[in-house]
Every structure is written in C-alpha cells, then in structure tokens.
C-alpha cells in the first residue's frame, strides 16, 4: 500500500467517488481525453461526436473518477450547468488550433464562472490546451491570455498543453486535478 493510499484510507475517502465534469466546445477532444484514461480493454478505437453526454469511470491515484463527458455542440451546452452542483472538479478542454472559436471558448468560460453553482466554490478547474500537435496551435500561454484566465482569483486552476491522441500532457494535468480534489475534499470535510 502506497503512502497515498494509506493517507486516503486514513482520511476515509478511499471509497470516495469523485465527479469531474469534462466540458469544452465540440470537436475539442473531450472524449479523446477521457478515452486515454480508460483501461485498455475499454478504450474506444473510433471516437464520434458525443450526443448529449456520456458517463465514463476511471482511476487515478486510487481515486475513482466519474467523468461526465458532455457534448460540446451548441445545442447541448445548456446541459452543462445541471452538473455543476455535484462535481468536484472541472476539466475544460480547448482546441488550441481553433483560433476562430477562442472567443466562443471565452464566452462559455465566462458563463461557467458566473454560474451560481460555480462562482462561490473553490472548485478546481483544469484546462487542456489540446491538439498541441497541430501546426497552427496556439501555445498554452497564449490561450491562458486569450481566455483572460489571470482574472480567475478565487479558484485553483491549471493549464497544460496536451495531445489527446498520444496522451502527452494529460497525466500531468490530471495529477494536478487529483491533488486539488483531495485538498478540496479534506477542506470541505466530505
């Protein structure tokens, strides 16, 4: 038993399931990101645009994640807010090669941060600047600036550049999120 597991056991959160909400515009790579964390036998070989949402489970550092993979299509974005309340962390996937829609990402992010179920909580937000392998991809620094992330004062946030196809950058990001959720759970005495 590793130190973390012991600690987790000690804190009584070993069996704790945590919910993370995976949001972002359509085609940003949310389903591909989640697919990376699934066990090899569960991995989908072909990823199609999500309709509505789908629920996926995976483990990271002995924490059982339930990921709500939301569809990013405009007509389904209304669904996101119904899951804000019960989630312990948010993964926001951005297609860094889609320069045209960076404003749309910012608009959705602003709506998210102002939502009553989000604005008063210190809920951690992880950003993936995905598709970093594309040749016209913006750097994660540029994306952070473009989205005005420096203005997020009251929540822990982190951005990592990622390539969901190869898995590059994904583990680093999710480790950060796991850490944050542990702290969050401890502080909020779940």
């Amino acid at each position, binding site marked *: 038993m590793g130190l973390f597991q012991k600690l987790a056991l000690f804190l009584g959160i070993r069996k704790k399931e945590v919910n993370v909400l995976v949001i972002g*515009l*359509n*085609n940003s790579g949310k389903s591909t990101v989640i697919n990376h964390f699934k066990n090899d036998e569960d991995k989908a070989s072909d990823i199609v645009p999500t309709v509505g949402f789908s629920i996926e489970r995976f483990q990271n550092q002995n924490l059982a994640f339930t990921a709500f993979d939301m569809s990013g299509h*405009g*007509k389904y*974005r209304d669904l996101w807010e119904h899951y804000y309340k019960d989630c312990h962390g948010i993964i926001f996937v951005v297609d860094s090669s*889609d*320069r*045209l*829609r*960076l*404003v*749309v990402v*910012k*608009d*959705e992010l*602003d*709506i998210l*941060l*102002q939502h009553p179920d989000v604005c008063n909580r210190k809920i951690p937000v992880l950003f993936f600047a995905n598709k970093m392998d594309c040749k*016209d991809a913006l750097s994660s620094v540029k994306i952070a600036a473009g989205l*005005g992330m420096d*203005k*997020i004062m009251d929540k822990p946030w982190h951005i990592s550049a990622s390539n969901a196809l190869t898995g590059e950058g994904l583990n680093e990001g999710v480790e950060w999120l796991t850490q944050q959720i542990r702290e969050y759970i401890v502080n909020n005495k779940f």
Partner: protein
Amino acid sequence: MSRSDLNISRWLDAHSDRGAGLQVLLNGAVLADVAGDGDHRLVVADVKLQPDTRSRLKVYRGTLLTSDQTLPDIPSAVITFYPDNLEPKVPAVGITCGLDLLMYKNNKPYFKFSVPSLPISALEDEVWTKFKHKNEHDLTQLVDSLKTVPYNTLTSRSQKLLLLKPEDAADFVDKFKDKELKRYSPITCATTLQRNSSEWNSVSCPVLATEIGQIYILDPQNLSILHQASVSVSKATPSVIRAIGLFDVEYRILIATREGLVCLLRRGWLEGRNVLQATTYIVDMVIMPADNFIILATMDKTLSCYSKKGSKLWSQELKQQITCLTLVPLKHLSMTLIGVGMKGGSIHLYRTRHFVDYVSIPDTPSSLLFGKMGQEDHVLVTITTSGILDIKILKRTADFNLTQQSTASNPILQNKPLPLPKRSKLFLEQSARERQNPIEMHQHFQQDLIRLRLNAARALVQSQGDQTGVGNDKELIKLSAQVLGLGPKFTLILNLENMNGDKALIDLTMIFHCKSSIYQLSHYVLRIPLVPPGLIYKAEIKVEDVSSDDFQGQNPVQSVKVFCTRGDDTHPILAATINMPPTDLNII
C-alpha cells in the same frame, strides 16, 4: 470577473484581418465544406482589376489562408454544390469567369463549362469573310458597314474593332481575321438549385445567367445543359439570381436585372415572367425560405418586401445606402433574419420589417455571408470594400424576440395589407354556383333573411312578455312578478330576492306607478323589511281596473311600474314594468 465584463452584444468578435486585401463582388464568396472534413472554409474570389494583377481564388480555414491560386479571368460569381452523392461528400466550387464556369474540387480545377455561342448576323459574318480576302483599301468601308448592325448583337471582336481608331483597325483585323468568329455573352451571376432533395448536402445544379438574359441550368456531374430559358421578353441583364425548390419537382428562379425588373422562371418555362418592377436600381435580392417573399435592396436606401406574386408587402427606408444582403437563418430559434450591409460599415438585422440588432464593422461591406464556418454554425463573415475580412460569431445565448418597443415601429410605414385569407377552392366553387343560378339563390337568401327576422321578432316579443323577473347584478337583487285574476280586480304578487350570500337587504322601499285613470292600487309605497341573505320577500298588491267602459278593451295593454329605492336615494336600484292583461268584461 464581474457581470459587466460580459459584452452585451449578441455577437463575439472572432477575427478581423485588416490586411486581408480582399476585393470581392456581390456574391463573390461562399462558406462550404470544401475539404469534406466537416471543417467549413471560406472561399473567396478575390477580384483584381489593376492591369498587371491576376484575380485569385482564396480559401480560408478558420482565420488562416490555406490556399491561394490565380484565376484565368475576372470572376463574376462563386458557387458551391455537391455534384454527386458519392462518399466522402466533397462539394465542388464553381467560379464564373467570362464565358466559363470553372469547377474546382479539393482546390484543383477539374471541369469547365462554356456558355454556347450565339448566332452571328449574316452581315457581320460576311464582313469578316471579306476581311480574309480583300485588301487594305476596302477596310474603312467594311468597318462602316458593320455599324449598320445593332451594336449589342455584334461579337465582342467587332465591337472592339468599332471602338478602335481607324489607323489601328488594319492591325487588329490582321491579327484576328483567320480566327473563327464567335459571339458569346458573358456570365453575370450564378446560383445553385437543389436537384431532388432539400438536404443541405444533396446534389444541386449550377444555374448561370448571361448578360443577354439566358439562363442555363446544368447537370452538376457532366456540366451538360439540363434546361435553358430566357429571363424575360424585354431586354433584361441579370444582376442577381436566386433559386429555390427542387429541379426535379418544382422550382422558382428569381432574377433581378439591371433594368430594375425581377423576373420569375419556373419549371418547364422557356421564358421568364416579370414579377415586379422596382423604381430604381436593385442592389441585392434575397428570398425568404418559408414564404418565398422577395426582399429587395434598392439604390434609394430602401429595403422592401414583395409577395411571391410581386405585390409589395412592406418597405423600410434606411439611413444609409444598402450594399449587400444576406439571409441569417437561425434554426434553433426557428426564424430567419435579413442581414443588411450598409455604407459606412453597419450591418442591421431585420426580422421581417422589424429592426432587431446591429453590428458594426470598420467600413462598407461589399459582401456578407452567414453560415457555418469551421465548427461554428452561426458565423457572420463580412468582406469590406477596403479589403478587411471580419468574422463574428453569434452567441449561443442570443435571442431575437421582439421587444414591445421595437414592434411599435414607425407608424407611417405600417401600411401592411389586411390579412385576407386566400381564395379557397370552396370559395371558387361557390362563386361558380352563384353564376349558374343567381335568381334561385337570391330568393333562397331573401326567404332565409325574412325567417331570421321573424325569429328575432318572436324572441323579442317573448322576452318582453316574459315577466319572470328583472335583476340588478351589482346589488344582487332580483324582482319577479305574477299577475293573478281576470279583472277588473287583479292581484299582483311580487317576489324580491336577495341574491347576496353575505349581506341582508335593508332600508328598501318599493314604489308603484300607474295611470290613476286606469288603475287603483292597494298600496303605492311599500316599505320592505330586512331581507336576509339568500331569501325572498313576497309582497301582494291589489290592482283594480277603474277605467271607464269606453276605454276598456281599447287600451289592451296597460302597465304598472315598480321601482326599488334605497333609503333617501332618488336613484332606483331596480325598476320593472309589469304589463297588465286587459279586463275582459265579456267573460264576466
């Protein structure tokens, strides 16, 4: 982050490229999935008119220019269409340049269609044959003879010859005399018409219009002519063309001409019909998808709407010259707005005649597009006269419901026609019947009318004779009366009902009026005791007919009036007239 950080505009400024240097004509750009990967691109025919520049075909993927190639001639229109149903579905881009429609697929030219040549006048043909054989000295004479042919029926070669200085004519003739003489009319505008399905990515046919007013509908696969027609009987130079419907089923092609006409061409027609005549030059035209209304922008800063038959429904005078129009279909809100680009750089959005929104761009737009770009469904692309490429995205949360204020627009402009129903089949059949047997129908009608009047009169008599009661809804009291006896002595029984469930009636007085020469009553004033809620007070009055014998029977109907008053109030709260039956002395 505060609420004020959110922009109140419905639009997000996605991109603005001041250095794009694009020069486009009306309808010189389209949005289409030209790579077939679901990532819709902007295809622009960039017109360069300077002597040693070439026009270019440019493709933008998102904000980046991904393809740029030269065009053989100055492009007049860009269209895009799916030539077949083969997977993967990749649309073709068609560019009209001069006489040709050039087809590109995956950014490579792969097909070309040239409009057929036109007949050449015998005289012109003869002149050019003579040029081949005759010597220099005949030249001026021959050129003069060309002048007798109407200028617009000449080939462009002869037209040019006539415009040359006499000393240059010989060289010009030498250069061209051995080449075949052909007359063409260049393509001025183009559109597409869906073939047999209205699905957005189903096969559609290119539709071309030439300067002399010929319309060609082409087979999208091999570019053969499926149908050919002329725009109008009169001289008509197409400037904007729009098509709706399906080629195989029923379609309408509307052509706005430089002469200010709008002509309609339908399936099977060889010649278009004039639908309407605008008073000034038509700048742009769009067709509303649901009701096929024609929206015209004219030079006199007016946006007007016509029914599909051509009658004017409304018009709106704007502050600025209109330069271009676009439809803004919003499926999720089930409405279609009209985007109006205006001089100076404002774009107004209209929901029918009502102004709903505006966006500003740096300068006058020369082409407006709304549709899917990249992964986004609601993108407004503007290319301005100074070459700026501006891209705006409609917010997901935007709605265009008319507020109370905007519906109450300028009253002078509310010359909306009455919402008369269409002439139905029933109506037409009825009018046919009327024409067949008018006399009979008139008589029937008159009979029915008389019967109706009779019924109405009967009902009136009945309600007058019915003395079951009068009431006062506000005071919640009701009075009913009954006359007993045959006369000359009668008994009048009055029932005063308190219909109020909570309050008792107090302090009421009943007063009786009658002609003292006819009737004598036992009481003229009755003080009514308290009537508890929901109960009835019953009063009895004796009435005696005292009229002299001569009058009896002559005034068959006489009446006694009853008033109810409260306290000292002179205003009755209830009044009733009781008709007394005549005294029939013969019975007695």
